[in-house]
C-alpha cells in the first residue's frame, strides 16, 4: 500500500463495476417506472394550429398526455437563459413544450406518459398536430440575409454582436496595423456543424414521495446541483425537498451541461402529478434533433505581417450559427474570439462576431467549445503567412510565440468567465521543439520524396493552441474520516468517464497519508454535496481537485491537533503515514486515524468498543474544558472550497502526417503526434486517455462528422448510419509527449486536460492535406469527394504549389 499516489498511473477504481455490468446509468434506474415519449416537430418552422389527441386516448397503457396549455405558470414560461451577457441583446429560449410556434425539427410539442416506452410511442404516433409551415432559415448565409426571421421580434436574426479589440504597443488599432504592415492577406475560413454525441443520450428519472413531499431526480447531466436548483424553482418546491443525482453517465462532452432540458422539468412534474415514478430515456434520433450541436462558424480574416512572419495586425469577423435558441448564451463565439490568439503575441487584434438565429437545433458547447474554430482560424493564418513568405511553417510560429519569461502574459481580452485573459504559465518554444522531434518534422521532406518516388502523396501539418481551463466560480470538497478508518470524499461536480473517483482518491491519499483502498469518492450527488457548478471547460481536476486537497488539509490539521493531545507531542512533530499519526521518524508508537476519528466526536452512547473510548466516563477529555471546544466541531471532517482568481491556461501542439490517394482522394493519417502541457499530472494514464479520446473526436470532426441540413431544415443524417462517427479503423495511433509547466494559480499546480485533444485537429489535418495536395484548404471537415472536387475545380489562386510560391498575395506598396 502506498499513499504517495499523486502523479502515478493508478488503475481506475470505476472499472470493476463498469466491466461487469454493474454500472448504473439512467435507463437502468426505476424498474416499473412509467415512461415518457415526445411528439416532436417534423417542421423546422411552423405555427401549431391544433393538437388532436382523440385517436390516441384509447391506447391501452396510456397514462397522460400533456401539451403547453397543461403546464402550470412557471413551467409554461420559457426555459432559463443560463448565461446572460450584455452583448446578447436578443436572447431567446424555448418553452418546455412548444407554444404556438416550433422553430426546429425535433422541438418537443406533446409529452406522453404510458406504462412503457413502446406504448408511449404508439400514442405519439396517433396524436395529430396541425401545422402551418413557415419558411425556415437554414445556414449562416440565409440567416444573415434575414429575408425570413426565426423569431419575429429579433431583427436581422441577430441574437448578439460583440467586438473586442487590443491595440498594438504603439497604439494602433488592428485595421490600422494591417494597413501599415509590409504584407497583408485576406481570406475566409469555415467550419461545419457537428455534435458531442455521447453514446448514452440524455435521460431523466423522477420519484416523488407524496408522504414527505420530496422529489428525487436522476439525470444524465453534467451538473446535478444546478439541475436541482432549476427544478426547485420551476416546480415551486423548497430546495431541501429536491435531490438530484447524476448516476454513471455514458459520456457528456458538453451537451449535458445544458439545463434544465425540457425533459428535466417535465418528467419530475409528471411524477408529482401522477404519484408514480416516471422515466424518459432519449433515443438516438431524439439526440440528433433535440439536444444541441456546435462548431458551425464562418470566419473572415485579414492579417498584416512583417518579413519574418510576425503578425502586426489581425482582424477577424465571425458569423456564428447558434440555432433556434440561446439557452447557454454566447459562450462559444466568446471562446473562439478570445482563444484565437493562441500561443502568439499579436501586434494588434480585433475580433467581431455576430451570433445568428437559424431554424436548426440550438448550439451549445461541445468539447473544445469554440476553440477548434479559433485554432483553425489562427493556424490556417500562420500557414498562409509561411507560404507567402516561403518560410517553414514552424519558423513563422516561433517568430510569434510568447516567450517563457513573459508569463504571466495578458492578452488584453475578457475571457468566457468575465475575467481578464492572462496566461499563467507555459513554454511554447520548448513545446514546439518537442513536437518537431516527436513527429520528425525536419526529416519529413526526405520522407515525402521517398514516398513520391513510389507514387504516394504525403503531407505534414501542425497546429498549436492555448486552452483556458478550470474556470470558476468555484468547486468544493468534503472529506470525512469515520471511526472505522474509512475516508469518505464528496464533491458536487459530476463525472462522465473522466476517472474522478480515481484521481480524487489519489489526491486524498497523498494529502492525508492514507491508503487509497480506504478512500471512496462520490461525485454529482446533491445528497452528499450541494454546492457546485459542474463539469465542463476542463475544470474538474483543477477545481474539485484543489478543493478536495484543501479539505484534506483541514482534516489533517485537525487529526494532528487531536492526536497531539493523546500522544502528548507537538502537532508540528507529527506526521501521518499509512493512516497512522505518529511522531516524525518514530514508527511504532502512533494513533490510527480511526482512533483519532473516535476521539474527535465526544459521545454519550457507546455502540461498539471503539465508540466506548469517546464516551463521557472513558476519562480521555479534561474535566476543565467543554467536550467540544469553542469554535470546534465534532467529527473528523473538513470542507474546502477552491475559487480561483481566473482560469489556468493549458497548451499543446499537434502534428500529423497524412497520405492522400492520388486517384480516390481518400485521406489517411499515417502519424499523429501530440505534445501536451497540463501542468502537473495527477494520473498520466488518465490524461493520455483523455488526449486519445479528444484526438479521435477531432479526427471525426476533421474528416467524417457533419450535420447535413437541407434547405427545409430537415437534418438528413440523424442516425449513426449517416453521421459518420469514426470506428477503430479510422482513428490513428496517437504518440504523446508531456511538457510540464505547473500552474502558479492553484496549490496542486494542475491545469485542465479534458478537452485538449480535440482542439487543434481540424487545423492540423487541413494543414497536412494542404501540404500534400498543394491546394488551399479553408473549410472543414473535408471528405474524399470534396477533396476530389477541389482537385478538379481549384482555381489557380487556390493552388499553393509545394514550394510556397503563393499567387494570391498582396505586397503592400504604400
Amino acid at each position, binding site marked *: 500500500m502506498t499513499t504517495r499516489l499523486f502523479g502515478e498511473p493508478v488503475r481506475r477504481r470505476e*472499472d470493476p463495476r463498469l466491466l*461487469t*455490468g454493474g*454500472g448504473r446509468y439512467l435507463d437502468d434506474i426505476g424498474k416499473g417506472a412509467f415512461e415518457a415519449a415526445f411528439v416532436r416537430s417534423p417542421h423546422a418552422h411552423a405555427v401549431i394550429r391544433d393538437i388532436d389527441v382523440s385517436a390516441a386516448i384509447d391506447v391501452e397503457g396510456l397514462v397522460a398526455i400533456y401539451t403547453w396549455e397543461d403546464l402550470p405558470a412557471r413551467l409554461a414560461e420559457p426555459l432559463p437563459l443560463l448565461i446572460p451577457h450584455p452583448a446578447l441583446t436578443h436572447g431567446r429560449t424555448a418553452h418546455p413544450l412548444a407554444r404556438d410556434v416550433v422553430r426546429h425539427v425535433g422541438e418537443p410539442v406533446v409529452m406522453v406518459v404510458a406504462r412503457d416506452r413502446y406504448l408511449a410511442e404508439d400514442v405519439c404516433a396517433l396524436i395529430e398536430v396541425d401545422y402551418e409551415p413557415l419558411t425556415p432559415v437554414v445556414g449562416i448565409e440565409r440567416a444573415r440575409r434575414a429575408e425570413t426571421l426565426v423569431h419575429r421580434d429579433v431583427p436581422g436574426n441577430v441574437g448578439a454582436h460583440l467586438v473586442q479589440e487590443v491595440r498594438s504597443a504603439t497604439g494602433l488599432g488592428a485595421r490600422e496595423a494591417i494597413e501599415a504592415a509590409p504584407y497583408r492577406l485576406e481570406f475566409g475560413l469555415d467550419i461545419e456543424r457537428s455534435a458531442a454525441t*455521447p453514446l448514452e443520450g440524455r435521460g431523466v428519472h423522477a420519484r416523488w414521495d407524496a408522504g414527505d413531499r420530496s422529489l428525487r431526480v436522476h439525470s444524465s447531466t453534467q451538473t446535478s446541483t444546478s439541475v436541482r436548483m432549476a427544478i426547485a424553482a420551476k416546480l415551486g418546491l423548497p430546495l431541501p425537498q429536491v435531490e438530484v443525482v447524476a448516476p454513471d453517465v*455514458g459520456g457528456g462532452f458538453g451537451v449535458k451541461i445544458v439545463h434544465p432540458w425540457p425533459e428535466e422539468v417535465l418528467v419530475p412534474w409528471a411524477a408529482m402529478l401522477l404519484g408514480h415514478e416516471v422515466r424518459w430515456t432519449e433515443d438516438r434520433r431524439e439526440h440528433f434533433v433535440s439536444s444541441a450541436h456546435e462548431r458551425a462558424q464562418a470566419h473572415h480574416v485579414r492579417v498584416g505581417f512583417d518579413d519574418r512572419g510576425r503578425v502586426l495586425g489581425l482582424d477577424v469577423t465571425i458569423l456564428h450559427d447558434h440555432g433556434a435558441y440561446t439557452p447557454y448564451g454566447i459562450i462559444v463565439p466568446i471562446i473562439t474570439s478570445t482563444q484565437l490568439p493562441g500561443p502568439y503575441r499579436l501586434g494588434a487584434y480585433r475580433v467581431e462576431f455576430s451570433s445568428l438565429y437559424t431554424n436548426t437545433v440550438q448550439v451549445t458547447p461541445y468539447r473544445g467549445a469554440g476553440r477548434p474554430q479559433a485554432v483553425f482560424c489562427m493556424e490556417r493564418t500562420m500557414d498562409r503567412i509561411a507560404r507567402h513568405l516561403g518560410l517553414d511553417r514552424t519558423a513563422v510560429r516561433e517568430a510569434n510565440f510568447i516567450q517563457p519569461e513573459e508569463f504571466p502574459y495578458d492578452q488584453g481580452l475578457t475571457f468566457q468567465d468575465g475575467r481578464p485573459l492572462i496566461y499563467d504559465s507555459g513554454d511554447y518554444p520548448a513545446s514546439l521543439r518537442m513536437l518537431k522531434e516527436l513527429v520528425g518534422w525536419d526529416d519529413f521532406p526526405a520522407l515525402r520524396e521517398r514516398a513520391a518516388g513510389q507514387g504516394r502523396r504525403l503531407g505534414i501539418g501542425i497546429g498549436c493552441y492555448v486552452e483556458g481551463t478550470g474556470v470558476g466560480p468555484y468547486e468544493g470538497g468534503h472529506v470525512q474520516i469515520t471511526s472505522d478508518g474509512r475516508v469518505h470524499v464528496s464533491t458536487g461536480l459530476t463525472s462522465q*468517464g473522466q476517472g474522478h473517483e480515481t484521481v480524487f482518491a489519489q489526491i486524498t491519499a497523498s494529502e492525508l497519508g492514507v491508503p487509497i483502498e480506504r478512500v471512496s469518492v462520490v461525485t454529482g450527488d446533491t445528497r452528499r454535496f450541494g454546492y457546485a457548478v459542474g463539469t465542463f471547460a476542463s475544470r474538474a481536476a483543477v477545481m474539485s481537485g484543489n478543493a478536495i486537497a484543501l479539505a484534506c488539509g483541514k482534516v489533517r490539521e485537525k487529526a494532528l491537533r487531536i492526536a497531539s493531545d493523546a500522544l502528548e507531542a507537538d502537532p508540528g512533530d507529527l506526521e501521518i503515514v499509512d493512516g497512522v499519526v505518529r511522531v516524525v521518524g518514530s514508527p511504532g508508537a502512533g494513533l490510527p486515524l480511526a482512533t483519532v476519528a473516535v476521539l474527535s466526536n465526544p459521545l454519550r452512547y457507546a455502540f461498539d468498543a471503539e465508540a466506548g473510548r469517546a464516551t463521557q466516563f472513558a476519562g480521555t477529555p479534561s474535566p476543565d474544558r467543554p467536550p467540544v471546544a469553542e469554535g470546534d466541531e465534532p467529527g473528523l471532517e473538513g470542507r474546502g472550497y477552491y475559487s480561483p482568481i481566473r482560469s489556468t491556461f493549458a497548451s499543446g501542439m499537434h502534428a500529423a502526417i497524412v497520405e492522400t490517394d492520388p486517384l480516390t482522394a481518400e485521406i489517411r493519417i499515417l502519424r499523429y503526434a501530440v505534445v501536451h502541457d497540463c501542468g502537473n499530472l495527477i494520473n498520466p494514464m488518465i490524461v493520455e486517455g483523455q488526449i486519445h479520446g479528444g484526438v479521435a473526436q477531432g479526427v471525426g470532426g476533421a474528416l467524417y462528422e457533419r450535420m447535413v441540413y437541407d434547405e427545409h431544415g430537415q437534418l438528413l443524417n440523424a442516425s449513426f448510419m449517416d453521421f459518420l462517427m469514426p470506428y*477503430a479503423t479510422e482513428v490513428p495511433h*496517437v504518440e504523446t509527449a508531456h511538457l510540464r509547466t505547473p500552474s502558479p494559480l492553484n496549490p496542486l499546480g494542475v491545469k485542465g486536460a479534458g478537452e485538449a485533444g480535440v482542439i487543434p485537429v481540424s487545423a492540423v489535418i487541413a494543414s497536412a492535406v494542404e501540404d500534400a495536395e498543394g491546394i488551399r484548404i479553408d473549410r472543414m471537415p473535408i471528405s474524399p469527394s470534396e477533396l476530389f472536387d477541389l482537385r478538379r475545380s481549384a482555381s489557380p489562386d487556390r493552388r499553393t504549389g509545394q514550394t510556397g510560391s503563393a499567387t494570391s498575395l498582396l505586397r503592400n506598396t504604400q
Partner: protein
Amino acid sequence: MRDIAITLTVNGVVRRVTVPGRRLLSDCLRHDLGLTGTHVGCEHGVCGCCTVLFDGRPVRSCLMFAASADGHEVTTVEGLAEPDGTLSPVQRAFAECHGLQCGFCTPGFLCTVTALLRDNPAPGEEEVVEGLSGNLCRCTGYQNIVRAVHRAAEILAEER
C-alpha cells in the same frame, strides 16, 4: 398485441419470460430480466453497445426480437466473469490498459472481444482493428482498447 412465452438460457441460467412480440431482445434483457449491463446506444444496429453473445456469436441485441431468442443461449457482460467474481482475461486487460472511460460502450466491446479471441487467440494488429470495427466508442479513441485486446490475448496464452 399477442404476448409470447419464451425460454432462453442467459449466462447459464434458464429464464422464462412472457414478452410482447415486438419486444427487442435488448429491452427484454435489460428490463424484463434486470440485466442492465447490456446498453442501448442507437437502436439501429450501428454502435454495438448492445452486443451480446448469442449461441456464442456476437450479435446486436437491439436488432433482434426477444421472441427470436426462444430456446437459445445468451451471454451478457454480467456472464463474462467467473462465478466467483474473478474477472475474465478480457475484462482484466481492459482495466489494465485503461480501455474504458465512461463505460457505456464497454459491455459491447467485451462481448465482441471475447468472441474475437476465442476464434483467433493471437490476432495481428489489423485483425484486432478490423475485429473492433463494429463497435463505437466516443471516449477512448480506441488506442487503449486495441492495446487491451493484445493484452487479453497474452493473458489467455499465459493461462492456457
